[in-house]
């Protein structure tokens, strides 16, 4: 009986329903400055996935004490720099962006991150011709 239960548990562990974890994911970032001629498509890595959370039966009395609320966010991050083409001399053509090396489920740090429920995606669309220029990157490792 004990062996049967153990085998069933192992079988269930293999095939139990689960959703994708919080993992680094490829992402295309579109960068457009008003003073520059082109919208630049930059391939980077972001954090995306599912994290465990739990509501509380006693939130009215104890507040958030037994709540578990976490989001998929950057664990280790590296900053890369891209040079935007078609920018006038007086405009700053340098654009620095984060690249996720690893991700984890954690609270949102308000000192470094903009914490939102669902942010507007207007900034990710281009209004100018898209450019895929060679990117000269200066890797500045910033491990959080």
């Amino acid at each position, binding site marked *: 009986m004990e062996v049967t239960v153990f085998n069933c548990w192992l079988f269930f562990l293999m095939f139990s*329903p*689960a959703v994708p974890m919080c993992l680094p994911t490829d992402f295309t970032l579109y960068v457009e400055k008003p003073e520059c001629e082109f919208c630049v498509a930059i391939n980077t890595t972001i954090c995306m*996935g599912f*994290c465990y959370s739990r509501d509380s*039966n*006693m939130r009215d009395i104890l507040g958030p004490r037994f709540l578990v609320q976490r989001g998929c966010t950057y664990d280790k991050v590296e900053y890369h720099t891209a040079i935007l083409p078609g920018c006038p001399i007086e405009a700053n053509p340098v654009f620095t962006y984060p690249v996720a090396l*690893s991700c984890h489920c954690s609270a949102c740090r*308000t000192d470094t991150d903009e914490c939102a429920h669902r942010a507007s995606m207007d*900034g990710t669309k281009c209004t100018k011709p898209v450019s895929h220029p060679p990117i000269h990157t200066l890797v500045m490792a910033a491990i959080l």
Partner: protein
Amino acid sequence: MIMKYVLSFHWVTEIIDKIIATTAMGSLKSPGLSLLLLSFLLYIADSYPNIDLSNMGCEECTLRKNNLFSRERPVYQCMGCCFSRAYPTPLRAMKTMNIPKNITSEATCCVARHSHEILIAGISVRNHTDCHCSTCYFHKI
């Protein structure tokens, strides 16, 4: 990262110990099947040495019985996994921020969509009746 790998290895060794114990007791009737399943788990664990165990078994947001309060009658609690992501803040959005942040984090959390108040041993408790992934109000630090 090393601790996560150690925890994964510890988890697998616990399974091995259990198999050895049941074999020693002479009660193992299907050692071949158990060893086959264990080999499969070891292969999975070896393929992903950096698995974060806090994310393992991330099941969907749904009602589950709260055993602490479920004495006289069942009390349910919303728990499970919801989608979230973090990405570089778009330039246009960054210009509207009082304090520009390089990273934007969008998160949803498993919370009760509907609940009703009940009394358990004189304590007011909310029994959840429906769950959904919605706004996280307490995930900031």
